[in-house]
């Protein structure tokens, strides 16, 4: 599907050619969508907000799986187990080291990435079905390990979960302003290719960041989280309070918020993380790394002959997949306020991920979005349909209420595999092309 552009739409620079957001209207659409999604708590139902949050972290996990399965062609049945690792890592960092989530989530993702490497090691020797089995082993062994009584003080032991306390935000206006300013200066410097801005901004950014997080962590150690009164986010006066703190001219003021209104808060965190992970995966797939992975998928022997180091690149794919699974698991663990096998992370979820990916479109950047949203919509529809039908046929109510979720998922998956194996993403491309080419035939 060649990219069709209207007449007169030319690229004048490399940056323009590589731009993800190419048109002004696209930019506004994107900003509008982000604002709309972040403010869902104002206008959406609670269930919708919850599902949006769930969708956001599911998509991040799917993007990881897409790199491994969609682009590199290595089947993984263990993505849910890697999410479990990420959730535990982030939770433990938050509990025992009092790390705020902007530190614990990236660290947890790195740890998960390393665990992913471990289970990616067999990919040196085996592929296809064998590798699927190796990841299946991960899906069984990792949850089993977390339930061991030996680690019960850390991982919860046989009871199968640990509680993660709600987190809170700290705002230190002076440092925050310096941080933001330095970030912008560094970015502008990078963009305008002025090294002095770029490196200076970056140095200030890093130093301020370290000071800020050190202050944040030390504060977290002294404040009793459970004792903070719950805060109803978005209630009247919040914005005013924030502006007051920022502008009253007492720059050393600290501002602490207990975050109990979680769906709202985590929705914004998840959506911003999703944006970052999307940029990451798009850039991976159109760079050297992505091309190497696609070469491995299409023909690994040919790729090797062309100079792609198979083992190294497969491991990289495993690392990225597990890294993103770790991010998703950490987000999930914090928003569910607990992590462990009692919360799921089962084989069924890993299978669901693969199904979502195929329905959305393997090896496309749009696939995770479309597949995740479609499957969640189908499942919600099934959960709604069962009880409705049960009202009509009360004698079979038990059976009717119970059967549609697996049937619908299975049916959708089978139909897609037969009639649209390239998934919804491909269908969307066709739709776009036919819109651009109208009134002519496709």
């Amino acid at each position, binding site marked *: 599907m060649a990219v069709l552009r209207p007449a007169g739409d030319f690229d004048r620079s490399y940056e323009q050619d590589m731009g993800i957001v190419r048109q002004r209207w696209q930019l506004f659409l994107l900003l509008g969508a982000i604002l709309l999604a972040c403010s869902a708590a104002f206008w959406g139902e609670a269930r919708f907000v919850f599902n949006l949050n769930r969708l956001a972290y599911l998509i991040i996990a799917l993007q990881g799986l897409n790199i491994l399965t969609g682009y590199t062609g290595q089947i993984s049945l263990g993505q849910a187990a890697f999410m479990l690792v990420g959730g535990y890592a982030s939770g433990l960092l938050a509990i025992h080291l009092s790390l705020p989530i902007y530190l614990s989530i990236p660290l947890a993702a790195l740890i998960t990435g390393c665990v992913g490497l471990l289970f990616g090691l067999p990919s040196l020797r085996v592929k296809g079905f064998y590798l699927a089995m190796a990841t299946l082993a991960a899906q069984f062994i990792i949850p089993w390990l977390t339930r061991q009584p030996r680690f019960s003080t850390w991982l919860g032991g046989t009871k199968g979960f640990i509680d993660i306390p709600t987190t809170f935000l700290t705002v230190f206006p002076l440092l925050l302003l310096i941080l933001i300013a330095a970030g912008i200066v560094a970015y502008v410097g990078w963009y305008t290719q002025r090294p002095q801005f770029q490196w200076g901004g970056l140095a200030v950014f890093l130093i301020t960041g370290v000071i800020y997080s050190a202050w944040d962590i030390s504060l977290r150690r002294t404040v009793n989280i459970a004792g903070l009164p719950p805060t109803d986010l978005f209630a009247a006066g919040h914005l005013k309070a924030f502006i007051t703190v920022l502008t009253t001219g007492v720059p050393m003021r600290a501002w602490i918020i207990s975050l109990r209104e979680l769906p709202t808060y985590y929705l914004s965190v998840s959506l911003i993380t999703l944006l970052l992970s999307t940029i990451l995966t798009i850039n991976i797939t159109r760079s050297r790394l992505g091309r190497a992975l696609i070469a491995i998928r299409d023909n690994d022997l040919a790729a090797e002959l062309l100079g792609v180091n198979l083992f190294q690149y497969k491991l990289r794919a495993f690392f990225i997949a597990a890294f993103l699974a770790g991010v998703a698991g950490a987000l999930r663990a914090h928003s569910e306020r607990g992590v462990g096998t009692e919360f799921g992370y089962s084989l069924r979820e890993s299978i669901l991920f693969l199904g979502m990916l195929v329905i959305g479109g393997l090896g496309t950047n749009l696939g995770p979005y479309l597949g995740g949203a479609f499957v969640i919509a189908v499942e919600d529809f099934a959960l709604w349909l069962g009880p409705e039908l049960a009202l009509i046929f009360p004698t079979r109510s038990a059976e009717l209420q*119970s059967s549609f979720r697996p*049937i619908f998922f299975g049916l959708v998956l089978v139909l897609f595999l037969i009639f649209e*194996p390239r998934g919804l993403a491909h269908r969307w491309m066709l739709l776009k092309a036919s819109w651009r080419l109208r009134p002519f035939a496709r």
Partner: protein
Amino acid sequence: MNWILVPQQLVNGLMYGGTLALIALGIVLIYKSSEVFNFAYGHMLMLGAFLTWWFAGGARTGNEPISLPLGWAIVAAVLVSVLLGFLIERLALRPMAGQPLLAIVLMTLGLSQIFEGSVNLLFGVTPKGNFPSPFSPSDAYTIPVPPVDGESIVFLDRIQIGHTRLATFVVAVVAAAIFMLFFQYTKIGLAMRATSENHELARSLGIKVPRIFALSWAIAGITATLGGVLLATLSGVSVNLAAVALVAFPAILLGGLESFPGAIIGGLLVGLATEIVKAATVVEVRNSADIAPYVLLLIFLLLRPEGIFGRHRIERI
């Protein structure tokens, strides 16, 4: 290791391994003829057990149309499963010819979800304990064992083999033997082996390859039903029966993916591994019985990825 328990656990492992071997055979059969990894096999097995239960009048609502004795119920269930096997092959897998491995794996996973939902819809969600089993769970044969270290605790002077488990093992072994003979000596069996070697060559010899595919799915339906019935006599019918196929996959890999004797040996190995760990003195090791097959699998993947009887594949561009 609690050596005093080892003989009993060896026997248990053998019995369990027999059932696993039969299940593994069914999966290998489909793989050999059509290169499909059937992740829906566990659900076919569960469906077979549910059908048998239903044909035997297990629903006991008072007005069920059919209530056959166990033997005929099994035959009826096998017939339905064979039909279902044909249908799966024709409707779901033939359109997938030439698709990559992932698509086919997902197709069977999708089918398994449909089966699970359908069983819930047709037979209800509660597990059925009233499977018409000819044995009681407490009946057992005993083999006397001389006391170890001069002392014998209650049950350790003998090895116990439950009637149900022994019957399961015997049926599994007989079925496996029939399987091998079928493939060794009958014309259809030979045609199937030829197809598994090379589709085009088989076709040029006048073998109707699509028919062979359909046949292999039908036979898989038979073995699945048989396995389902055997497991159901042990533990009743429920949706959870499908999970046993997940343990059969490590068995297949251990055996070598394309080999019938391999599937049997692999099944027995996995069965033994699962039961032997229960004789350990450390409680953590005992509680690892669930993951023992996968640990064994990982070791094999690192040391001998092609399995015991597998052939090392040579790939060309």
